[in-house]
């Protein structure tokens, strides 16, 4: 029986997961548009965020704020290493986008295996911070506090990102370069350096997404792979390098999954999402925005 309460709970669930996935997808989307780098290790960065967060919060200190900040820096560092070791050398050789993708699958393998050997294969549980545990009552409706808190924190991060891309010089330059990388580089924009910056920011924000979602899902060595597929759907659906598009796509897709799982088993609801991706790519073979771009 479909009650209003269940519906609302699922809408909230879809919403907060949508906010987190926007964080994870944004960096990927802009780097894909800017450099043609399809980062298959992006899911691993998100997973790294969750694991580093787990270690800092559960094993070292109980300080969530400190944990959050350290995660952001740790993932930014990992992103920096990946970029300097893999992406930059390949870019300077002028290799096609598929080569980046293939090399990054290798990076994903290494990261996943290291995480397995450092933290073990069994799932870890990150507790919900004390002040955010429990529920808030809206009339007869009980909403979990932590989910609302995730929405609030992600909104703040998203606003910062929005400010960066629309109000600062570097941000505007990078969005312009996504529109037309060739002209931008003719105008003196150093695409690789810009790419480095966006890649590192993307990695940091993905890690932040990982630690935010950690207390809700368990932290497992397969969480990166599981999220990667959805992130690609979001990026393609939202259009490469589009902030608003990615946000809307993320909310839409997570709502489809969340509301779909009321009526269908969860796996079938997820299948719907991938069918949607197929449908988009068949009707618009270059994604929603439809540039030929650097990805062909």
């Amino acid at each position: 029986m479909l009650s209003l309460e269940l519906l609302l709970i699922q809408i909230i669930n879809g919403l907060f997961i949508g906010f987190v996935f926007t964080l994870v997808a944004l960096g990927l989307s802009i780097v894909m548009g800017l450099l043609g780098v399809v980062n298959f290790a992006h899911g691993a960065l998100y997973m790294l965020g969750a694991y580093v967060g787990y270690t800092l919060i559960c094993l070292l200190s109980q300080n969530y704020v400190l944990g959050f900040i350290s995660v952001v820096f740790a993932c930014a560092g990992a992103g920096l290493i990946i970029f300097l070791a893999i992406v930059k050398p390949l870019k300077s050789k002028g290799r096609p986008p598929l080569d980046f993708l293939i090399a990054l699958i290798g990076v994903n393998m290494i990261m996943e295996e290291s995480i397995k050997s450092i933290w073990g294969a069994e799932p870890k549980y990150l507790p919900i911070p004390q002040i955010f545990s429990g529920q808030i009552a809206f009339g007869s409706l009980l909403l979990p506090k932590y989910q609302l808190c995730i929405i609030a924190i992600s909104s703040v991060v998203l606003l910062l990102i929005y400010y960066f891309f629309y109000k600062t010089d570097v941000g505007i330059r990078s969005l312009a370069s996504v529109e037309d990388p060739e002209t931008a580089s003719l105008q003196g924009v150093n695409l690789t350096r810009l790419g480095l910056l966006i890649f590192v920011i993307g990695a940091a924000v993905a890690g932040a997404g990982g630690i935010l979602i950690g207390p809700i899902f368990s932290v497992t060595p397969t969480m990166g792979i599981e999220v990667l597929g959805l992130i690609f759907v979001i990026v393609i659906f939202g259009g490469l390098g589009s902030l608003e598009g990615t946000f809307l796509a993320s909310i839409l897709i997570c709502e489809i999954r969340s509301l779909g799982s009321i009526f269908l088993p969860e796996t079938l609801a997820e299948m719907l999402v991938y069918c949607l991706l197929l449908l988009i790519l068949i009707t618009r073979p270059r994604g929603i925005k439809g540039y030929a771009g650097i990805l062909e």
Partner: protein
Amino acid sequence: MSGTHAIILSLFLCFLFTIPLFGTRFFTYTITCALIWGILVMAYDLICGYTGIVSLGHSVLYGMGAYSVGILSVMILKVTNPLILILSAIALGAFLGLILGFLCSFSRGVYALLVSFAFAQIFWLFVMADPLHITNGESGITGLRPPPLNLGGFTLDLFRGNGLYYLVLIVFLISYTLIRMITNSQFGFILKGIKENEDRLRSLGYDTRQYKMLAFTLSGIFSAIAGVLTAFLENAISPGIVHWITGAQILLMEILGGQGTLIGPVIGSFLVTFLKFWSGENWVYYLASLYILVVMFLPRGLWGVLQDLLAKLRK
């Protein structure tokens, strides 16, 4: 083919045919695995190396080939005739290949890869969710091996141990010959043309989409055969075989060995299989590092490097 080539090839064939006589059981098992992967990666080479479409969806063609054995022999119908199992797997592989080819033929490059990625995810979720009650969900299917053949009083067991090894070896050699014939035919040259410059071929009047679909269909047939052999070898299958990670492993072997050469992919599959079984528990690190190094520094793969070395030696 020059004289030295013929000698090396026949020595190698002699080695392959005599392995069960001197090798341990585990060694024979490793080679069997490597040969099955070899068939699969050669089939993949037709798409990736020759036509230039990087797909992660071959795990579906391969995995559903294996699943078709499980579905027919265990879940419904209880078919045990190996010929029927293989033929139905081939039909399924060709059909799925055609569909994947159709879906991938709309877009190019990374977009085509994402199409195949979504295709693999859909089938993996289908196998996991099991809405039709044919795949047994997460636990997979066991007991796939057909009983030994009974040929008028004397039994021939081609589905385990050394018997399976020879079956796999013969299928491998036939597949190699057939795929080599495909790539050397006019059709094969058109596929290479698609990789080099698809727009030019289109302007010359070739309907490249149809060629891509046919290539995928052919590739699907060989992939499904590899799937059936895996089902016989392992006697069990689980949904992981359909996941795009398996597709990424196929891609990895292809890239390690060298694309578009048929020999390279076989080298890649042997290398990966041996690393996996013989280099201890850290094999993923070795493999992934080797893989990244090859992508970065040897775009033509290990076979490309070998060819260059041989050419230098001849001078």
